[in-house]
């Protein structure tokens, strides 16, 4: 991908422009890659264990592995990469550095400390020397109870991400003083709207942890209301998936058109899309609770309606991004109704990785539409279908986009040339093929009732009865897919490590992103009124959540009916554990 710039100042990499920021971004990316490496490897352990291909851990320890896999990949990997990309996006598009780099390092370090606390407490599940327990999975549903360090770590991590958001806002405010009449550049607009709904949604999980779970794990309060903390988790739990997804969307909007050789089809629609995510990401969380008792059907229906309308920004994105790619292909000489597809730069791993990630997201969109459907959840809820779904979304749309982006970003922030473009191209293809096997088999298995989150989906009293294919064939596909994904992961990490040993290069492309066919001047200025959109988002959350939360508190009490914590280990008789826990928490 040879990119030249007409402007004289910008034949420079990000490292040349912002050396101090580049260091933080590099650190954030490597934190992200380490989480990806560990979490991904644990994924292979799980896939082989579940499918009974290779079991070398005890089934009781499977859940420790699963907790680590979920937290490291869904939270650590994604959010560290996000803070790196957003810092890049804000500084690049505003063409100014952060206000105070010490503040930037402070939030990064806070997030690292949080991750380490959470990681060590999870490790306590398999290492006897660590007297901690956090086998609670990434949803940490009470009354399963983790060590306080687990909750404290999560809080530190989230607060670190809040400060990162504050950093981007400060940078934007400083820029606005210098450029009072300009529209917010699109990448900054995307980072800021995403940050706003992150603030809004994390309030729920912060409340859940700080008011209920942490005091309860410390023994300050005796009891929790499990439905309340669960609802507060999902208040955050769906918006978080959009939080991971938004950096990928940003890449598709501002990098893919450039990589394709064209321009973004419509800047105004991109802004509309991000505003819709700000408005609708949070008041939809109850769609994860369609099968929960204690929540009236009407609230579930409202959540469904909001969720379905949240399809709109994604469907619009599909059009805008593909049209931008087509624009590039035609500028590169592509012709015909579909013949232009051949003119796309398929040999460029950054382009191909992102394009394949987008294609898989189209498939994920479909299973997501099913998940959004209220009563059809009786079929798919908590089945392996759901796992297939989010391995397409966070596991491919996000992860593959991030890995492809890293092939461009790591040279930008290190000044070193990518070690091997061929290996990178092979890597994105192997990931795509591996995920095709694994995810399609998981979806199908869910339809005949194979559950998620289980070490041994083999039961004594009954067998699963697939309408098409066999359980063995599905397991084989999942195991094969997981092996391919692990190979792809190793290829990625190898390329990253060897790149960082490369010599400094002065032939790197400049730090640029895509121009636009229809620019911000075509959109009404009200789109940039972040206060207005935030206010409406808050109102929608109040409308969507006040009544369900009130009814949950009314029926179960704010702190529940004397529900103590459980740490259910297989060595002990559960009844005894129950008693001992009751003793600890009278």
């Amino acid at each position, binding site marked *: 991908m*040879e990119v030249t*710039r007409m402007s004289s*100042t*910008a034949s420079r990499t990000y490292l040349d422009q912002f050396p101090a920021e580049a260091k933080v971004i590099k650190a954030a990316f490597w934190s992200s890659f380490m989480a990806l490496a560990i979490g991904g490897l644990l994924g292979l352990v799980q896939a082989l264990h579940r499918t009974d291909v290779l079991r070398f851990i005890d089934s009781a320890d499977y859940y420790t592995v699963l907790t680590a896999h979920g937290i490291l990949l869904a939270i650590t990997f994604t959010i560290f990469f996000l803070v790196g990309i957003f810092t890049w996006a804000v500084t690049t598009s505003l063409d100014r550095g952060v206000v105070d780099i010490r503040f930037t390092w402070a939030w990064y370090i806070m997030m690292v400390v949080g991750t380490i606390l959470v990681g060590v407490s999870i490790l306590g599940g398999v290492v006897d020397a660590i007297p901690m327990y956090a086998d609670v999975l990434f949803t940490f549903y009470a009354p399963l109870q983790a060590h306080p360090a687990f909750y404290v770590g999560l809080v530190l991590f989230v607060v670190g991400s809040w400060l990162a958001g504050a950093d981007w806002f400060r940078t934007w405010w400083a820029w606005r003083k210098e450029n009072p009449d300009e529209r917010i550049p699109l990448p900054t607009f995307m980072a800021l709207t995403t940050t706003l709904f992150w603030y809004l949604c994390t309030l729920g999980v912060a409340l859940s942890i700080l008011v209920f779970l942490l005091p309860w794990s410390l023994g300050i309060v005796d009891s929790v209301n499990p439905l309340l903390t669960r609802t507060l988790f999902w208040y955050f739990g769906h918006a978080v998936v959009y939080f991971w997804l938004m950096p990928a969307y940003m890449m598709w909007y501002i990098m893919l058109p450039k990589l394709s050789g064209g321009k973004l089809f419509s800047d105004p629609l991109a802004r509309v899309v991000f505003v819709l995510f700000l408005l609708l990401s949070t008041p939809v969380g109850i769609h994860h609770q369609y099968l929960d008792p204690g929540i009236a059907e009407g609230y579930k229906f409202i959540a469904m309606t909001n969720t379905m309308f949240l399809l709109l920004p994604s469907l619009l994105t599909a059009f805008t991004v593909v049209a931008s790619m087509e624009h590039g292909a035609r500028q*590169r000489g592509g012709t015909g109704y579909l013949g232009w597809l051949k003119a796309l730069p398929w040999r460029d791993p950054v382009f191909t990785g992102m394009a394949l990630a987008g294609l898989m997201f*189209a498939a994920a969109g479909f299973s997501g539409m099913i998940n959004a459907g209220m009563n059809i959840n009786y079929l798919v809820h908590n089945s392996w279908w759901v796992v297939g779904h989010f391995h397409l979304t966070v596991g491919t749309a996000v992860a593959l986009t991030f890995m492809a982006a890293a092939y461009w970003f790591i040279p930008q922030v290190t000044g070193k040339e990518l070690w091997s473009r061929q290996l990178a191209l092979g890597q994105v293809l192997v990931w795509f093929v591996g995920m095709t096997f694994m995810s399609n088999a998981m979806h199908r298995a869910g339809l005949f009732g194979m559950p998620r989150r289980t070490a041994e989906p083999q039961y004594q009293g009954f067998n699963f009865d697939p309408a098409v294919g066999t359980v063995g064939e599905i397991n084989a596909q999942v195991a094969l897919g997981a092996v391919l994904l692990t190979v792809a992961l190793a290829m990625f990490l190898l390329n990253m490590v060897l790149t960082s040993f490369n010599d400094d290069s002065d032939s790197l492309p400049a*730090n*640029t992103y*895509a121009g636009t066919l*229809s620019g911000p001047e075509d959109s009404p200025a009200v789109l940039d009124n972040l206060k207005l959109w935030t206010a409406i988002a808050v109102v929608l959350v109040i409308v969507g959540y006040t009544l369900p939360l009130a009814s949950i508190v009314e029926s179960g009490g704010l702190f529940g009916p004397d529900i103590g914590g459980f740490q259910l280990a297989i060595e002990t008789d559960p009844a005894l554990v129950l008693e001992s826990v009751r003793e600890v928490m009278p």
Partner: protein
Amino acid sequence: MASATEQRETDQVREIGHEEYDPVGTAILIGIYFLILVLLWLFMYFVEFLGNGPTVVGALLTVVGLA
């Protein structure tokens, strides 16, 4: 306008402006996607879901039956 936006690609053989560009290929692809979504949705809801044996029904039906 920010200065960092991309201006030109070396592989570019022609410049296509906003007015002269109709994303007809995109319209075709997205049309195909629309059809796939509709057909798969109908299949999933009416065959996979409603055909999947006993389903939770409301007590409402009984009440109506007695009334």
